[in-house]
């Protein structure tokens, strides 16, 4: 347990050192979401309709961009080798790393999403649902993404390959996440979507660290 906290602390410290990375993921999120009004035009009714989808897709992409940072630096400088050789079980260390990834990538997105929602003219209730959906959804994205990041580790062109592996697996999160906001807006209530999202999250918490650990061991072989 101590080691998990240590690795979270370490990754947060590293993130502080290269602050620009964390901030840039955030700005990426904002910029991508803001590109749409530019590409599509300013009608606010149209924008309100597409808002949940656009915000969620932007969150997906921002998370995905951060995945390259998840294991690759540790792999390149040999730290990952040392982790595998460490007496602490690898699974724990991996869980710690995923948690740190969520804190540095997912959490800021959740906090920032309302601002974007306001840009797209969403009302307060919809903003609340958006935040809750992202709060459930972003850890899911980190967990699934970690599998992809581990699989593509040390593979040439891994940085782009990971998107190919991970984006299709993100589809349910996207559908339920954006769906929650949409069905709230259309008056149907977001409960169903949100509980499905929570169920997926529970499933992923259980399986993803295990699959990630297995994938890491394979890529180090």
């Amino acid at each position, binding site marked *: 347990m101590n080691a998990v906290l240590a690795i979270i602390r370490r990754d947060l410290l590293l993130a502080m050192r290269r602050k620009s990375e964390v901030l840039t993921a955030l700005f990426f999120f904002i910029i991508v979401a803001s590109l749409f009004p530019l590409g599509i035009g300013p009608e606010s009714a149209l924008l309100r309709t597409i808002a949940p989808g656009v915000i969620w897709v932007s969150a997906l992409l921002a998370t995905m961009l951060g995945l390259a940072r998840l294991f690759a630096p540790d792999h390149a400088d040999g730290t990952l080798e040392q982790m595998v050789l460490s007496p602490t079980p690898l699974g724990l260390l991996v869980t710690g790393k995923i948690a740190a990834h969520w804190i540095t990538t997912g959490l800021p997105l959740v906090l920032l999403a309302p601002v974007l929602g306001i840009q797209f003219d969403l009302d307060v209730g919809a903003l609340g649902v958006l935040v809750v959906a992202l709060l459930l959804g972003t850890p899911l994205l980190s967990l699934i993404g970690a*599998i992809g990041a581990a*699989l*593509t580790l040390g*593979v*040439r*062109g*891994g940085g782009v*390959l990971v998107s*190919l*592996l991970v*984006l*299709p*697996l993100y*589809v*349910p999160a996207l*559908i*339920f996440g954006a*769906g929650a906001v*949409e*069905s709230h807006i259309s008056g*149907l209530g977001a409960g169903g979507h949100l509980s*499905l999202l929570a169920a*997926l999250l529970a499933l992923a918490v259980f*399986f993803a660290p295990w*699959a990630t650990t*297995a*994938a890491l061991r*394979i*890529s180090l*072989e």
Partner: protein
Amino acid sequence: MSNRLISWFKYASPQSFYPLAGRMIPWFWALTAVFGVIGLWVSFFVAPTDFQQGEGYRIIFIHVPAAWMSMFLYVVMATWAGLGLALNTRLSGMMAQAIAPTGALMAFLSLWTGALWGKPMWGAWWVWDARLTSALILFFLYIGFIALQAAIDDARRADKAGAILALVGVVNVPIIYFSVKWWNTLHQGSTINLAKAPSMATTMLWGMLLMALAFWMYSIAVALTRVRAIILEREAHTEWVKDLNEVKA
């Protein structure tokens, strides 16, 4: 019991599977031809014209088999991959690798034929129907599997990494399917629902089944041929490969 286990493992070694596959391939090609010819004959000459869709519906005789095979092959591929991970047999990974391109081909064919069908029927090449969308995602999963394996140089590592991806995919495919379905019904966007397709005449069903059998046999034949090439590539440095008749010749 123990006897059967041993012989099973014997055929799980590339060395004994290679000639066995060589002997099986012609039979599967023959079956492909037989089912294919009868199936085509039924699809074009026996099955009646559809009263709603005219002759355009005949696409169904390849569309549905391709769609079925694309889903079935994914499960088969993941099973082999999982076996490889669990039992550490070399052949399993090679089988998974051999099946993937054929699976991707089937997924592509179902999309292609579906699109060519959709244009006359719905007036659009593509709609974001639940089934179409999940077929598209399945295609992406295949491509991801192939790309991952291609990107890893070490064959054993590629097998294991691919296996994990395939297994994660197998857990996800049903989730994706249902989520897409739900997404689609909520929006009530598409006006035509595939599930409400016209009830089929028995001859149509027969044609479809025969073509599905032909596709199935085809997939087995191609996968076996490909696995033989993979075996040779991977075992190139072993003695038994050097002693093969086709190498000596």
